[in-house]
């Protein structure tokens, strides 16, 4: 009986703390539903909730352009990361050679460079290659940042698959590469989904590179776009928060359906 009471108290405590930690989300939703004149008319709940802000954003060419840019960038980064990490991860998992651990060590060590150092060093390279203000530079630097982790994750998945499976296929006359793609890849789908989600998430949320390597308005990303909205003399909070909701929605939806992949990616090593 006493135990049950303690459990209920625990649950109650957790509920309150969870509500507190979700407070910013609540603020986002609440302010996104407010009309311009009534933004500060109430504190927690909007007076006369309206979807006008969302409609304004859907008609705003610049903000929609940012969204389009981010969608294209994130999907491309995810696709490249998946393809390269399958091939390289397979290589690291199946072949034994001298200096293999050193190579893995070095590849992984590159993720430990300060992003600001990468930005500074990469900037000169980009200017020299005439890639400044070109989305291609963002694809390159985002993919390079996420790849060591993706390779590591794919290697981990491949390690769990017994070699005998593809050896059987190779005895039947399958080449190494088709054994990899036709036999091993189909059964490592969870790993591929996890790598895809992580790369997508990284590119979607990235801010530093997006604010350094592109300059013109038409090449803005969502992250730089929303921060730009704060630069106006009068900040339209309703609009800003509606945009915050719109650009967070894809991630939240992915999370609801694919929660276990987010967590498995985290526990596989952790990316911020």
């Amino acid at each position, binding site marked *: 009986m006493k135990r049950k009471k303690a459990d209920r108290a625990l649950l109650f405590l957790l509920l309150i703390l969870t509500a507190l930690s979700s407070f910013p989300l609540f603020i986002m939703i609440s302010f996104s539903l407010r009309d311009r004149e009534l933004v500060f008319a109430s504190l927690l709940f909007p007076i006369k909730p309206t979807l006008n802000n969302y409609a304004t954003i859907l008609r705003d060419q610049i903000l929609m352009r940012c969204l389009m840019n981010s969608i294209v960038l994130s999907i491309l980064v995810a696709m490249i990361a998946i393809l390269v990490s399958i091939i390289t991860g397979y290589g690291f998992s199946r072949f034994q050679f001298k200096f293999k651990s050193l190579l893995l060590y070095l590849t992984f060590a590159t993720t430990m460079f300060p992003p*600001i*150092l990468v930005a500074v060093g990469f900037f000169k*390279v980009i200017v020299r290659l005439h890639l400044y203000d070109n989305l291609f530079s963002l694809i390159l630097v985002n993919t390079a940042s996420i790849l060591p982790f993706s390779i590591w994750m794919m290697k981990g998945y491949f390690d769990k698959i017994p070699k005998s499976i593809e050896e059987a296929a190779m005895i039947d006359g399958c080449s190494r590469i088709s054994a990899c793609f036709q036999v091993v890849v189909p059964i490592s789908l969870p790993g591929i989904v996890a790598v895809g989600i992580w790369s997508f998430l990284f590119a979607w949320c990235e801010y530093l590179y997006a604010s350094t390597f592109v300059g013109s308005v038409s090449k803005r990303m969502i*992250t730089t776009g929303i921060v730009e909205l704060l630069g106006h003399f009068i900040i339209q909070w309703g609009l800003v928060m509606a945009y915050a909701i719109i650009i967070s929605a894809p991630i939240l939806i992915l999370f609801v359906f694919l929660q276990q992949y987010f967590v498995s990616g985290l526990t596989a*090593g952790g990316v911020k």
Partner: protein
Amino acid sequence: MKVSSQKKTYYWTAFFFIAPGVSFVFFLTLYPFGQAMLMSIFKVTSDSRTFIGLANYQRAFQDNLFWLSLWHTLYFTVISVSLHYFIGLGFALLLYRLGKSIVSNILRGFLFLPWLFASAVWCVTWQLILHPHFSVLNALFNSLGLSRLSHSWLSDLSLLPLTILSVVSGLKFFPFHMVMLFAALQVIPLELFEAAEIDGASSLQKFRSITWQFLKPVTTIILCYDTIGSFYYFDLVWILTRGGPMNETEVLSTYIFKTVFQLEGSFEYGSSMAIILMIILSIFIMVYIKIFLRGEFEI
């Protein structure tokens, strides 16, 4: 003869699989790194390149703003990493205590939310909560009759803005620690607790000699990882305060960014500071990579 040619094919196949990905990563990270190294020790003019040695590094050591930013970075890192860890640990233990159920899964999902938002989105929202003109937090305090507690959170000329930034970071990244620690708790065999119960151990004793032993390894790795991440963290400070007011929240990342891309356009000085930043963290980096790849080295 046949064996050696087979071996050759084997190595070529390995090369074919590994080389493209690894060289892609190396080209795009080691090359800029080398570039930054070179920039920090050479003075480059339009047609010549003169070796100036460690002059840029010396300059950093005489630059008051560099030392101030370094101190701010340390302060920010210590506070936000402790917040991440203790909030994360608290939630992990509470959720573990609650046991497995649908409610606990839903709660875990909601607690994970802050981590999912882009830093930009998170900071913009906190900008509204802490804004100098209309701060949701101040308004909340006022309506509760606690107007003594309201402050100009991000524009005060003291350590307050930097502390607030650490708290905003604390509230965003604790789910990472929570998930990692929660996963570590799952592998504790329940028999251990039962045995301790029979021996009459107190809750504190049980925590110290059972739970903590299972949390220790994962604690090392997440603290290392998080220290590195927080030390490098740029978005939050840049979006919320740009290092202001009066450099009160300037951290190394934002100072380097300003030096290179805004104030003087000095890539040389900027890259030398970025390299110092990395050297300071090298111990954490080595420990992290070592633990991370440990499995690999044991095989």
